[in-house]
């Protein structure tokens, strides 16, 4: 670095030099470090320079040679008596203090306390310091020495040597002890660095403080008349030094002072630029610091004051554009400051944010452009010699290169002045302002977007678009404008929309974009466009031209030089070889032709033709003819039926001529035309919805240029989307026939197709309820009431879906004769489950019907459905009860082995229908025998009505068996059917039922009693008891007859005997009845020592207890059962 | 019925204008209910010289206004005999309410029912757009 190396003054007016923008940091020069060859030094340098995060002290360090030449210090003048300042602020000054004149110079020197050649070293160090001091003669720059030491120091006070040598060194370099530092380059280097730089920072602050003081000191020498400039300069300097010192409050105060002084300066054309530049700088500083102090309102009000004060201080009128440039810059830079502040955590609001300032900046830029247009056109050449030669080495900010340092009111050399102005104008001409404007606008857009001001954002985008247009970037303009039109349309700001469209139309023309051109025209002709009907006519004519492949006339207001190009473009575009077919989405614009479509009904049967009407209305200037209209449906098969090609037949009653798809698409303004289409749904669509997916209206012919105007769904336009009632002229009087009221036409985009209703009749002939387990017979009778033959009829019969699945499982359906067409009977077998079953019969068949579509009838095959369902109750046919009884017919729970017993079955008919029992069967298990050898049913072909009963009785015996066991008897099965159902020839139903088990007891002995059925008083009756031994061993038996008052008897009163195994013993008695009636017999007691107790009660059970005794006298033959 | 719709339309138009006049000096409305209250109190009083007797709502955009002595029905003999004329008399008020509300930004359907002259119920169903 060298003193001469000054930076370049920005040439642009109102530009802010970097040294102004940057944050001023105290400047500290580090000398004596060899960062290239000495690793240690390098490390030290890096510890200073590398990653200076905000938490480090605000200093900027530079490496300089020990013998670096610092800028010479001019001898301070003792008095300002004769001094006339040549300008306000030197261009070099800020930079000088930021980068050239250090606040502190640090001399690094490798020296340890235990250095052997201490003396020499000390000398060397001193001389180095001397060098530095010398080159800084007259400046207050602080000098500090840092000794780089290998070994880390002992705690202070202990190292005597160190203390004493340090003192020596200080005196040698006449350095205050405070300015001597030790840097042991140990592993804690960074820590030491931090400490060091803090020390340096203090020194630096001290330095800047002094500098500020110095400047202040000049103050009293100044006088108001000649030194106004100096007042500003000094205040500015003080402020700047304070900034360097990081005392922002004082800085701010001083800048304000400076600002006040500038505003007081007498301004005239010659120094206006200088004043504005400086005030601009100061204002910048004030705003920046205000934001920094978190006082945004101060910043804003300061800025307002600033611009209000200067906005009319145009200065030299030939250079008015400079003023706009300056204003532009002011706003932009403030915008930036504001934005910065926000990023630093400030919150802005919808009505106060950077966007507004960028916007204003942009406006001033635009203004500048206009002024340039007005002022600079004559300045076509750069005068020679170029007065702006040394524009980049000005001595003072904001001065004219050709008369630097000149402060008098009028320019010294008018001729030069003229050249200068011309030169500036010439330079201005070279500027492409659009590229200043557009970025400003776009940053404004970003801001407004952020602060939810959609409309403002859009407006700015429009302006961007216009700017692109001026910048001749028509495509960009077009796309940009295209993006915003929608919102203006939806909010119905027609005037704005129109202006945008006009602009777009020009762009479209200039880039010969057929699609855009047509689209825009469609809308410009439409009812939203606020342009005269002549213009509309003109637009429409051009539209027609384009559509019929001729280039349109140039749009008025296009830059003529580009029109020629455009013409060529159009020629190529519309040349026969390349065809332009494109689609225009009509719902995105408010076109001059509107469309509504509807199905005549919401649903219709498969055998009737669907009717679909399309209504068109044009609001253009003169009649227009379209080439084709097609309605596209979700099933493309129909599209052909819904296509109408204009047959170029003149006239037309609005009704499209049917049959032939040729019609008349000639629309006259204001008149609504209706086009009807008709077609028949395909079988596949039965049960589905047919929907209008879109409507396409072609303008122009397909083979060269054709716009396909497309409405999604059933039409309607974005105007109606905006839910604002249409403003139509009030129609008067009652509605006339064949004239439609547009607003009353509803959109019905879909129709659902339902099957043709069937004329089949289904009868189900059957007699419920069904009996459990039977084959239930039902007869289905299908009668065809169609007047046409029907084909592939098919029938399903079965349980209706969705009944409890126990029912489903327990039901089977059989078909007897599966010959469809004639009545088919069917049986339902239902098993073990009573309850309701719903039977459904479903038939399906095809039938060919003739449908008149478009006046000619065509056969259509329809599938029809018919169903019938009945609910069938199922009941039990009968209920069966089983009893067991002893031979005495009294019911028993258990029987004795070898002792015969009775099985009684009772069948009670519960069916409402008589049932016939064909047979019944007893299937005995091996444990049980029948007494008589052949078991045969007693119920064969017994027929029972409801509640009638049928019983059977079998005599069974259970052979000897081990003690007390229960044995199954077997099964009982009944074969039955409904009485009189022969003609159906249904099989008989066999229901088998498991019989209960019985308990069989085995007993040691069996007593058989032989006794007459009755006796007579005083007439002896003979009684024999036979006692069988059922055991395998001899049994002792004691028998005794208990006396009784009713009888006298003869025979053993008391007897004891033995019975051999499987043999018997007979005891005979004669009873002599004394009283008549049903008398108690004398009881025979049996006792067996082996089975104490048992035998006796056995006897009790087996022996008859009473007998009927007739009185004496008259004979009677009657039988009485005991 | 054609005449009923006509009357309704007249009412609608008048309602729009009236409400514009009445709300000229009232502070901005807080919400739907606030508007309804306005209709029942001020609007009704100014038009029919009395407040609505009862306002009920399901808080889902259905309101029922009940007026037990509805001004336009007082002239008619009380009771049930002139029931069939009620629609003619109520079409206009319905329109009035609808017009007022729609101008206040609430599109709705208004129907009236009379069970016993001169008491009358107006049901308002707000159309959420």
């Amino acid at each position, binding site marked *: 670095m060298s003193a001469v190396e000054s930076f370049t003054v920005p040439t642009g007016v109102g530009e802010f030099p970097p040294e102004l923008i940057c944050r001023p940091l105290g400047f500290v020069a580090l000398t004596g470090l060899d960062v290239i060859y000495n690793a240690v030094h390098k490390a030290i340098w890096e510890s200073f320079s590398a990653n200076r995060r905000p938490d480090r002290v605000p200093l900027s360090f530079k490496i300089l040679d020990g013998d670096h030449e610092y800028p010479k210090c001019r001898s301070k003048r003792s008095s300002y008596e004769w001094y006339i300042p040549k300008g306000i602020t030197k261009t070099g000054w800020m930079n000088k203090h930021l980068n050239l004149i250090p606040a502190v110079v640090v001399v690094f020197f490798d020296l340890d306390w235990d250095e052997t050649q201490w003396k020499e070293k000390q000398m060397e160090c001193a001389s180095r310091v001397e060098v530095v001091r010398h080159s800084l003669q007259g400046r207050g720059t602080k000098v500090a020495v840092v000794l780089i030491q290998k070994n880390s120091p002992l705690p202070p006070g202990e190292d005597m040597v160190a203390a004493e040598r340090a003192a020596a060194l200080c005196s040698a370099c006449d350095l205050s002890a405070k300015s001597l530092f030790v840097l042991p380059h140990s592993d804690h280097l960074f820590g030491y660095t931090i400490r060091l730089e803090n020390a340096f920072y203090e020194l630096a602050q001290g330095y800047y403080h002094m500098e500020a003081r110095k400047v202040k000191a000049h103050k009293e020498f100044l006088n108001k008349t000649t030194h106004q400039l100096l007042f500003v300069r000094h205040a500015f300097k003080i402020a700047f030094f304070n900034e360097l010192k990081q005392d922002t409050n004082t800085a701010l105060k001083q800048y304000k002072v400076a600002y006040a002084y500038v505003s007081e300066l007498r301004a005239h054309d010659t120094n206006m630029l200088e004043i504005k530049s400086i005030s601009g700088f100061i204002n910048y500083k004030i705003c920046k610091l205000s934001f920094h102090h978190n006082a945004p309102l101060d910043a804003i009000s300061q800025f307002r004051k600033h611009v209000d004060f200067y906005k009319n201080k145009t200065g030299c009128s030939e250079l008015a554009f400079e003023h706009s440039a300056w204003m532009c810059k002011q706003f932009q830079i403030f915008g930036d400051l504001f934005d910065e502040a926000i990023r630093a955590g400030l919150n802005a609001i919808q009505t106060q944010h950077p966007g507004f300032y960028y916007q204003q900046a942009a406006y001033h830029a635009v203004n500048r452009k206009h002024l340039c247009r007005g002022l600079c056109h004559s300045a076509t050449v750069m005068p020679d010699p170029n007065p702006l030669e040394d524009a980049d080495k000005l001595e003072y900010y904001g001065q004219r290169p050709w008369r630097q340092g000149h402060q008098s009111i009028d320019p010294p050399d008018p001729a030069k002045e003229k050249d200068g102005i011309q030169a500036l104008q010439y330079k201005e001409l070279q500027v492409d302002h659009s590229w200043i404007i557009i970025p400003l606008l776009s940053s404004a857009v970003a801001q407004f977007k952020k602060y939810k001001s959609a409309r403002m954002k859009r407006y700015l985008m429009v302006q961007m678009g216009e700017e692109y247009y001026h910048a001749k970037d028509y495509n960009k303009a077009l796309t940009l404008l295209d993006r915003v039109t929608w919102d203006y349309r939806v909010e119905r700001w027609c005037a704005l929309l129109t202006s945008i469209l006009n602009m777009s139309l020009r762009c479209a023309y200039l880039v010969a974009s057929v699609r855009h051109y047509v689209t825009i025209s469609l809308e410009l002709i439409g009812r939203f466009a606020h342009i005269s009907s002549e213009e509309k006519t003109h637009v429409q004519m051009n539209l027609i031209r384009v559509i019929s492949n001729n280039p349109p006339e140039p749009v008025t207001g296009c830059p003529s030089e580009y029109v020629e190009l455009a013409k060529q473009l159009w020629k190529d575009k519309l040349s026969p070889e390349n065809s332009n077919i494109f689609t225009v989405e009509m719902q995105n614009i408010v076109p001059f032709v509107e469309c509504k479509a509807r199905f005549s009904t919401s649903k219709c049967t498969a055998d009737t033709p669907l009717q679909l009407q399309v209504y068109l209305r044009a609001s253009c200037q003169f009649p227009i003819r379209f080439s084709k209209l097609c309605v596209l449906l979700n099933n493309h098969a129909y599209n052909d039926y819904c296509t109408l090609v204009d047959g170029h037949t003149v006239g037309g009653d609005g009704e499209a001529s049917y049959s032939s798809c040729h019609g008349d698409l000639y629309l006259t303004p204001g008149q609504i035309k209706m086009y009807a289409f008709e077609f028949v749904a395909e079988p596949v669509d039965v049960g589905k919805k047919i929907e209008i997916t879109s409507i396409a209206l072609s303008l122009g012919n397909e083979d060269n240029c054709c716009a396909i105007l497309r409405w999604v769904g059933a039409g309607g336009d974005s105007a109606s989307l905006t839910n604002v009632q249409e403003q139509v002229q*009030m129609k*008067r009087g*009652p509605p006339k026939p064949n004239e439609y009221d547009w607003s009353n036409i509803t959109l019905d985009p879909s129709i659902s197709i339902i099957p043709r209703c069937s004329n089949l009749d289904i009868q189900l002939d059957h007699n419920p309820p069904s009996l459990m387990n039977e084959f239930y017979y039902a007869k289905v009778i299908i009668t065809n009431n169609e007047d046409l033959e029907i084909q592939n009829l098919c029938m399903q019969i079965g349980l209706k879906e969705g009944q409890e699945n126990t029912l489903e499982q327990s039901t089977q359906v059989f078909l007897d004769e599966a010959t469809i067409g004639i009545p088919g009977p069917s049986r339902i077998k239902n098993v073990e489950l009573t309850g309701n079953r719903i039977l459904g019969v479903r038939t399906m068949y095809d039938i060919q019907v003739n449908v008149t579509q478009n006046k000619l009838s065509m056969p259509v095959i329809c599938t029809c459905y018919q169903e019938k369902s009945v609910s069938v109750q199922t009941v039990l046919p009968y209920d069966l009860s089983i009893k067991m009884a002893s031979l005495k017919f009294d019911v028993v729970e258990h029987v004795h082995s070898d002792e015969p017993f009775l099985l009684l079955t009772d069948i009670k008919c519960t069916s409402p229908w008589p049932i016939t029992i064909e047979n019944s069967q007893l299937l005995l298990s091996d444990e049980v025998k029948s007494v008589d050898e052949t078991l045969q049913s007693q119920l064969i072909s017994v027929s029972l009505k409801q509640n009638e009963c049928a019983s059977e009785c079998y005599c069974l015996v259970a052979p000897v068996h081990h003690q007390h066991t229960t044995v199954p008897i077997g099964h009982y099965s009944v074969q039955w059917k409904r009485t009189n159902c022969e003609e159906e020839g249904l099989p008989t139903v066999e229901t088998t039922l498991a019989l209960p088990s019985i308990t069989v007891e085995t007993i040691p002995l069996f007593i058989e009693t032989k006794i007459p059925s009755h006796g007579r008083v005083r007439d002896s009756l003979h009684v024999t008891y036979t006692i069988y031994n059922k055991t395998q061993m001899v049994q002792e038996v004691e028998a005794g007859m208990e006396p009784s008052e009713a009888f006298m008897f003869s025979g053993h009163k008391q007897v004891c005997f033995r019975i051999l195994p499987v043999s018997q013993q007979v005891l005979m008695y004669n009873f002599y009845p004394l009283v008549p009636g049903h008398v108690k017999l004398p009881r025979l007691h049996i006792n067996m020592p082996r089975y104490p107790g048992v035998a006796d009660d056995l006897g009790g059970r087996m022996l008859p207890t009473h007998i009927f005794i007739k009185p004496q006298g008259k004979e009677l033959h009657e039988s009485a059962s005991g | 019925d054609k005449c009923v719709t006509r009357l309704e339309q*007249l009412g609608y138009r*008048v309602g729009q204008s*009236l409400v514009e*006049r009445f709300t000229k000096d*009232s502070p901005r409305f807080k919400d739907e209910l606030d508007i309804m209250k*306005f209709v029942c109190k001020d609007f009704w009083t100014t038009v029919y010289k009395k407040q609505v007797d009862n306002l009920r709502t399901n808080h889902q955009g259905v309101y029922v206004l009940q007026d037990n002595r509805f001004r336009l029905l007082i002239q008619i003999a009380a009771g049930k005999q002139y029931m069939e004329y009620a629609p003619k008399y109520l079409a206009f008020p319905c329109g009035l309410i609808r017009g007022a509300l729609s101008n206040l930004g609430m599109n709705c359907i208004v129907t009236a029912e009379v069970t016993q002259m001169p008491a009358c119920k107006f049901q308002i169903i707000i159309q959420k757009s």
Partner: protein
Amino acid sequence: MSRQSNRTTDSRKVSQELFTLTYGALVSQLIKDYEGDDDVNKQLDKMGYNIGVRMVEDFLARSSVGRCHDFRETADVIAKQAFKMYLGITPSITNWSPAGDEFSLIVENNPLTDFVELPEKHGNLCYSNVLCGVLRGALEMVQMEVKVWFAQDTLRGDNITEIRLKFIKRLEDALPAGEE
């Protein structure tokens, strides 16, 4: 009740507004329904007539005016009482024809026409024509056949509103009310 307080419109004024607005709505509806303004005028007149024939009873009952002896008296009653009672205004009576069978009512601030601005295209619409009908109908009920029409109307740019009445003849026995 905050709103109640800050409502300024007094109910009397309001009911008048209601009346005016309703009439306005009626007229514009008629304009929609009929082809030409003349039909509308006729319609208004007819309506007025029907009102008139009913209203006269009410009027006679409320204002105990006796039989008028001449047309001038009638004029007075109409202006000073009828108009006052029903429209709250008293038009002035002028321009008597020499024969005394014809006079004008100069109506100032006709309540029917508040807010009304007649569009150009309705140049020959007699906005307040209903009044003519009323007068005609009412007078017919008191056995006077008269012709009533708007001679001038501020709505149509004239600087006064003038209703002209012309006495045609005395109707002997009261003929049945209502011509339709």
